[in-house]
Each structure stands twice: as C-alpha cells, then as structure tokens.
C-alpha cells in the first residue's frame, strides 16, 4: 500500500513537470515569432519569407490588425502570458494557460482561414505561430484535464485512519 502511494505520486508530478516544460518551450518559440513580426512591423522592415511575397501580402492585409494593433503584437502578449501562467501553481495557473492557449488557437484558426480563402497568400511565420498555438492548446488541455497531483487521494488515508481510531476509542 505504502509502496503504491510512493510510486504513484512522483510519476504524476513528473508528467505535469514535463507538460510545464513543453508549454514553456513552446511559449518561448511563440515569443520569438511575435517579437520578430512586431519588430519588423514597427521598424518598417521586410519580413523574411520563403514564399514569394506571401508574408508581406498577409502583413499588409486588413486582417493583420485588430483595431489598429498588429495581431503579431497581441500574439506576443498572449505568449508571454502563457509563459507566466506556467509558473502559477495550481488550478488558476492551469486554467489561465488553458484559456489563453485556446483563445490563441481559435483566433489563429480564423486567421489561417483568412489567409487561405480571403487573402490567398500564406505567411510562414503566421502558420508557424498557428502550429505552436495548436500544440499549446493540446498540451494545456491535457494539463487542465489531468488529475491534480497537488491533491492526491492517497495521502488522506493516514489522517482518516487516525480519526477513525479516535472515533472508535470514544465509542468504547
């Protein structure tokens, strides 16, 4: 019984730690993409692009901004927030990370739809960001749905046992 408890808890924690590390790494990649696109936008530089002019087409389109703010900048803020959420312990941190990644994923799907069916051009940086957000959405969902390792069922047992002993003694 003790052995079972001893092996189960560290295993769960280790998976959560791995998820947090993966989310952190993906957020850093996203921060890199967001920083580059924001910098090129405000510095008026050309975006390095594999396809002929696709990135510029997308960046010049009306969908590249949200009320005047470049979506790349909003993405950068989102990635930073997801990165910070990894360091917030407990349910709140996981919920924040999950919510932000979900918003980013859904909005990036909308932007990819615009690229494919409205702008008719693709920007590799945007597609890269969409891929990162997809992975982040998957990982934060797994992290959100996993059993909370901080509140395992088993450690309660010794407490319950002691209480029971006290209750039985009182009855006698």
């Amino acid at each position, binding site marked *: 019984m003790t052995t079972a408890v001893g092996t189960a808890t560290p295993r769960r924690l280790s998976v959560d730690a791995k998820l947090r590390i993966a989310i952190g790494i993906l957020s850093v990649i996203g921060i890199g993409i967001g920083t580059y696109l924001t910098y090129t936008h405000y510095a008026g530089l*050309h975006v390095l692009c594999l396809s002929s002019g696709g990135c510029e*087409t997308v960046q010049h389109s009306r969908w590249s901004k*949200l009320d005047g703010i470049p979506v790349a900048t909003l993405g950068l803020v989102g990635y930073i927030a997801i990165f910070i959420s990894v360091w917030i312990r407990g349910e709140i941190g996981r919920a924040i990370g999950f919510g932000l990644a979900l*918003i980013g994923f*859904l909005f990036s799907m*909308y932007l990819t739809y615009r690229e494919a069916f*409205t702008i008719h051009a693709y920007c590799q940086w945007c597609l890269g960001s969409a891929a990162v957000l997809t992975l982040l959405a998957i990982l934060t969902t797994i992290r959100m*749905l996993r059993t909370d390792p901080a509140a395992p069922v088993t450690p309660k047992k010794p407490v319950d046992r002691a209480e029971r002993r006290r209750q039985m003694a009182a009855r006698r």
Partner: protein
Amino acid sequence: MASRTKQKEEARARRLAEEQARAEKARRDRRIRTVVGVVAAAVIVVVALILINSGGNKGGIKTGTEATATAAAVDQLLAGIPQSGATLGNPNAPVTMTYFGDYECPVCQAFTLQGGFPQLVQNDVRQGKVKVVYKSYCTATCNGPNPSVFPTQQVAGLAAGKQNKFWQYTELFYRQQGQEDTGYVNDAYLTQLARQVTGLNLSTWQSDRGDASLTAQVSSDQTNAKNLGVSGTPTLIFQGPKGQAAPSAAVPSYAQLQQAIKQVS
C-alpha cells in the same frame, strides 16, 4: 473477535473509499465546471476578436464631405497624366507595367493605396517614364458570394475608360472598397462611384456599360493572365527595352518597383 475486527476494517475501508469517491467526484465536477467556464469565456473572447478584426475598416461608399475629399485626392493624384482606356501615362513610355487586378481584392487595394503605386504614379508615370496598363483577373470576387458580378464591376471601370476616366473610377473603387465576402457590389454601388468621378458623363457611362467589346476585353484579360501563369492579384509585369521583370512581393514598395524598372530599362 477477529472476524468482527475484520468486518469493522472492511466497513471503514468502504466508508473511506466512498468518501474518496465523493471527493474525487466533487473534484471532477469542479474541474468540469472550470473547463466549461474557461471554454465559454475563450469562445466569447474569440468571437469578439473576430468581430473587431473583420468589422474594422469596413469601407464602402463615402458620402458628403468625405466623398468630396476622396474624389479631390484622386483628381490631384491623376491630374495632368494622360489616359486612354485602361492605360495610364504616356503611351510612348519606355516601360510598361501591366497590373493584373480585381476591384474587390483587398491586396490590390493595399498596393494601390499603400504600396509603391501612388509614388510610381506621382513620379515615373507623371514624368512619362512608365505607363500602367490595368488588366482584369478574377480572384477575390470569384472566391466571394457573387462571382458573376466580376465582369459587371470591371466593365464599369472600362466604361469610364471610354471617357478617359478609367483610373479615376479604379482609384475611387479601391478607396471605397467594401468588406470582402459581403456581396456589396451591386448596380447602386457602381453608379454611386461613377457619380463621384469628376467630369464623367453619367448617361454615356451607363450606355457604355452595355458595350459587348468591354465584356470581351475582361474575358480576354483573364485568358491573357492564365496564359502568363498569373495566379493572384495584384500581379505586376514590367516590360521595357531590356526585357521583362516581375516584383516578387505581393505588395511591392516603391523601391521594389524602381528595382524592376531598372532591370528592364
């Protein structure tokens, strides 16, 4: 005695298991509530973001002083530059830029209004070094809700071209381009644009819209584009004494246009 103790232990184990199951269920319920809440909040936020993103810069026909100011800006840009049909600039200019475009294409709008085009017109076209020939190629319109409006809208520009006002009409269209995929182009929209073109004879324009040769010109432009391998708009092809060049950027800057001009002249 041993059996009683065993029974008690079993009962205690059962109670513990039940308590744990209840606690687990409560935790699961709480988790589900959190997940549902977060998903609902995320969906609301995304819908709001999409509405802001797609609703911004709606464009469309301007009225009143805004319309007057727009028409004045167009007149100022094109003043003194010769026009003939869909050609802007000196007919003997050494360099020709063929511009494959679609009036409903937002990227064409970006190029015409914010890319290198205004500077090209102000400098090279005005100085007679470059002439611009507009050709129709259906992209955004054909992906929209009403692809059949494409010849009608492009012919509306060409009909203005019969009065050497093609570029006024084209500029006004791009400056008042509506939101894509909304099917905003209709007869009223096209006529309102024509009304804004300074000096355009409206009744002549209306009758010229029925000119079959203009519809044929739109079809011929499309065939021409397909033969050249044009796949999107705007596509710009420069032709000059030294051959042909096409800027790779979809929304070329003035520097990129200059580079292409240098290559062919």
